[in-house]
């Protein structure tokens, strides 16, 4: 066979093989295992944005104990974390850093917008130094309203996020 035909045949064969691999992975126990491991080890990035961090700290406390879900504030770098919680008002100065942090996190990465200020502007919406539309910086998975939201509300957002992860595709 000529060189071109061999290359075409190889390209089509590799394409079909990777489709087959993706179908195998995406349909059965492998997808379950991969998603199970992702949702049971959600590590939040160490970046606090504004005053909602007090309720985030209260959620990490002994009453609600998110460590049973594998969510612990480990002092590693952000290359090992996969959850960015935008707690509270995002100022223009902090927005630049949040964007850099989001882009440095490896995929799959998730974002929770906590508080009224992160969802849509909130109490300080008419100030000169804040960013109202946080969803234009990066895609947000779960919104948690409240000012500040109760720790139980934030925990229920994490449970929702885990449900979303459980059902998502492996190569999302």
């Amino acid at each position, binding site marked *: 066979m000529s060189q071109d035909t061999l290359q075409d045949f190889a390209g089509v064969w590799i394409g079909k093989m990777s489709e087959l691999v993706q179908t195998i992975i995406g349909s059965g126990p492998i997808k379950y295992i991969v998603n199970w491991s992702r949702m049971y080890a959600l590590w939040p990035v160490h970046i606090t944005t504004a005053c909602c961090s007090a309720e985030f700290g209260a959620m990490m406390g002994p009453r609600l104990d998110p460590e049973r879900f594998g969510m612990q504030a480990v002092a590693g770098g952000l290359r090992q974390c996969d959850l960015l919680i935008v707690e509270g008002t995002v100022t223009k100065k902090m927005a630049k850093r949040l964007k850099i942090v989001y882009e440095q996190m490896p995929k799959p990465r998730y974002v929770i917008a906590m508080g009224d200020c992160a969802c849509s502007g909130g109490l300080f919406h008419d100030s000169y*130094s804040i960013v109202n539309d946080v969803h234009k910086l990066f895609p947000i998975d779960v919104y948690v309203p409240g000012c500040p939201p109760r720790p139980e509300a934030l925990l229920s957002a994490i449970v929702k996020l885990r449900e979303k992860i459980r059902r998502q595709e492996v190569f999302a």
Partner: protein
Amino acid sequence: MSQVSLSREEAIIGKLKARFPEAIEETKIDRARRVTIHFEKDHVQEIAMFMRDELGFDHVKGVAGVDLPTQKKIEVLYFAGSYSNAEVQDFIVILKAQLPRDNPIIASVVSVWESAHFHERETFEMFGVKFEGHPDLRKLLTLDNWEGPPPMLKDIKFPEMGQR
């Protein structure tokens, strides 16, 4: 209603007026333990040194700016307090200087009151007041590359803010 004696407040005003007869423009006692003194801006370092050395006011609680657009002036307020002198420990003496609004420049008091360091930086950023002699006058709170006007001036109504 008992008469509250304001002798300590009047003593402070008396000493300042005796030492700087031409620099002190106006004095006011708002209530007990609050004295307001309007002074000429060129004498700010001398007055600060007198307050610190003779009267015992060893720190400032803050440096504020107030924008008065109708009078075309910016006022700079110094809130002086004392930790060392037990007689005036409960006082706040507010020293006010008026600067022209289009060119607000005043000497810095950081060499006298080191506690004014960050407050003067913030007033520079928010009102545009230049403090001459400040060792490190740069922006503190707004965005790194903020090109806009000083935010706290009254005629600046940012488009996002509700009109007054």
